[in-house]
């Protein structure tokens, strides 16, 4: 045992820097029987919006070579039910939680932040990067000025919570987004959300998804995520949550070496749910990996 590997972010404290990523982590309880969630740093819960969302119709998942495309479309139970039922259940169990929020417009964003303010959430991740919805999500997240506005409001409404801005890689310059988030007062950024992609299928080669474009995750995008983390940490002082394609202990170490402060694991949990705990074990034995 190399001792303490706990991390702190503003008012939030986590056992260690290994999280389940938003989306794959669900509401935190679905993997309970398979993953010891009290062993890991915590879960970033599925992105919630102010109102419940049904999510996208038609197919939502598609495997590509080394990757996974998804078009879930932010299906979620809405802020009210989330803060009433889902969050307390996790907190009662002593599971570390980062609450993921997405605005569907400026007005409902105010409401959403209000709901978060009324809650016990110590850390929120603002999802400025979902490719699978019409409004909000990536449309906001690709514009440094809008990123700044969204982070500013969160900072104002949630002065005593840790605020993390989740960034999209589908931009010319992710570093400028991170800079905006920093200036607007974020405590950290998360890089990256999924990469835009599509696939076609069948004899008639039709797009797999109704919305055509979807979000690519998994091992295929690891180099893209590492590159984003490296470039952001060279230019911005904020702690960075690294996410994208992590599928082994070595991958996790690479993200720290690229400068990450913590990591999140998404797609790999689907096929190797033991990974997050194995990473924690490795860190407990060897200490947190060196950061460049």
């Amino acid at each position, binding site marked *: 045992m190399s001792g303490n590997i706990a991390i702190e972010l503003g008012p939030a404290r986590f056992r260690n820097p290994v999280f389940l990523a938003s*989306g*794959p*982590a*669900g*509401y935190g309880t*679905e*993997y309970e*029987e*398979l993953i010891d969630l009290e062993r890991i740093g915590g879960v970033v819960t*599925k992105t919630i919006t102010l109102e419940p969302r*049904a*999510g996208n*119709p*038609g*197919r*939502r*998942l*598609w*495997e590509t*070579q*080394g*990757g*996974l495309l*998804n078009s*879930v479309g932010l*299906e979620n139970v809405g802020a009210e039910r989330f803060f009433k039922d889902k969050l307390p259940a996790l907190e009662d169990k002593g599971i570390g939680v980062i609450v993921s929020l997405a605005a569907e417009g400026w007005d409902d964003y105010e409401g959403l932040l209000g709901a978060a303010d009324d809650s016990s959430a110590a850390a929120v991740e603002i999802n400025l990067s979902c490719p699978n919805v019409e409004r909000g999500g990536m449309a906001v997240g690709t514009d440094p000025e809008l990123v700044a506005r969204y982070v500013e409001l969160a900072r104002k409404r949630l002065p005593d919570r840790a605020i993390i801005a989740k960034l999209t890689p589908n931009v010319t310059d992710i570093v400028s987004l991170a800079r905006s988030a920093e200036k607007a007062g974020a405590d950290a950024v998360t890089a990256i959300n999924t990469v835009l992609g599509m696939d076609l299928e069948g004899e008639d080669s*039709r*797009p*797999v*998804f*109704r919305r055509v474009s979807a979000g690519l995750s*998994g*091992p295929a995008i690891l180099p893209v995520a590492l590159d984003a983390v490296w470039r952001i940490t060279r230019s911005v002082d904020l702690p960075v949550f690294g996410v994208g394609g992590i*599928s082994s202990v070595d991958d996790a170490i690479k993200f720290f070496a690229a400068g990450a402060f913590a990591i999140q694991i998404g*797609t790999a*949990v*689907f*096929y*190797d*749910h*033991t990974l997050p705990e194995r990473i924690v074990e490795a860190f407990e034995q060897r200490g947190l990996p060196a950061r460049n």
Partner: protein
Amino acid sequence: MIDPGKGHFQAVVSRRESLSPSCVLLSIERPRDFPEARPGHFVSIRVAHSIEPLLRRPYSIMDLTGSELVLLVKVIGKGSALLAGREPGDELDIIGPLGGTVFPEPEGGEAVMVAGGTGLAPVLFAARAWRNANLHLVYGASCAEEILESIVREGFASTHFATLDGSLGYHGDAVSLCAELVNGGKVGGSYLYSCGPKGMVSALEAGLGKRFTEHYTSLETIMACGVGACRGCTVPTRGEKSPAYRSICADGTVFRAREIAWEDWNDR
């Protein structure tokens, strides 16, 4: 919701039997501590410790005895081909049993079960579990070779086969055969059970759903997590709020067929 209590297991293949040009029966030593499971439950298998294929593959439990877990595997693509190629002694990385709902036992003791292709698996599991029920099996496949007669053994009051090419049994699909049998009074009961291609099940519900008190169907789609977390395996259901999506892996696999918004459920 019937949560069997899922676990993660390294299980050893005990027997591999080739049943047809496309299908293999895989018997697996039941891991110690593998929970009880019921018809409609499934397991999810990591078929390769490689990124190709990346995700686990879901398979219905066809049988679960004190010593064996039995799966029926049809070769579709890379993942199923790898799985179907496993030999006795090979290890399998399995999570399960998964699924939140199962086929309920029929009331009245008589029921019709319609299976298409590998949809046979949960139907056989049910037939084995409900030894005292009077079950009529209507089972369709593309051709005689793909009718896995050898595994349709015990427990049915009557069995009826349909092949699309007419090479065995009824010439046509399982739904048409079922309609003939029901209309002719040859099979009956108050419960209808089904598992098979979406087109088969929706046609069955449209044509015969009203003739039964209940029509329960076990659904399939592409899955990622298998535990209800990712919301990727959803099916649209009828309800106050529409669309209302339910996950096949955790809210299913078994649904009342009339609750499914069939007209909205397609892959694109």
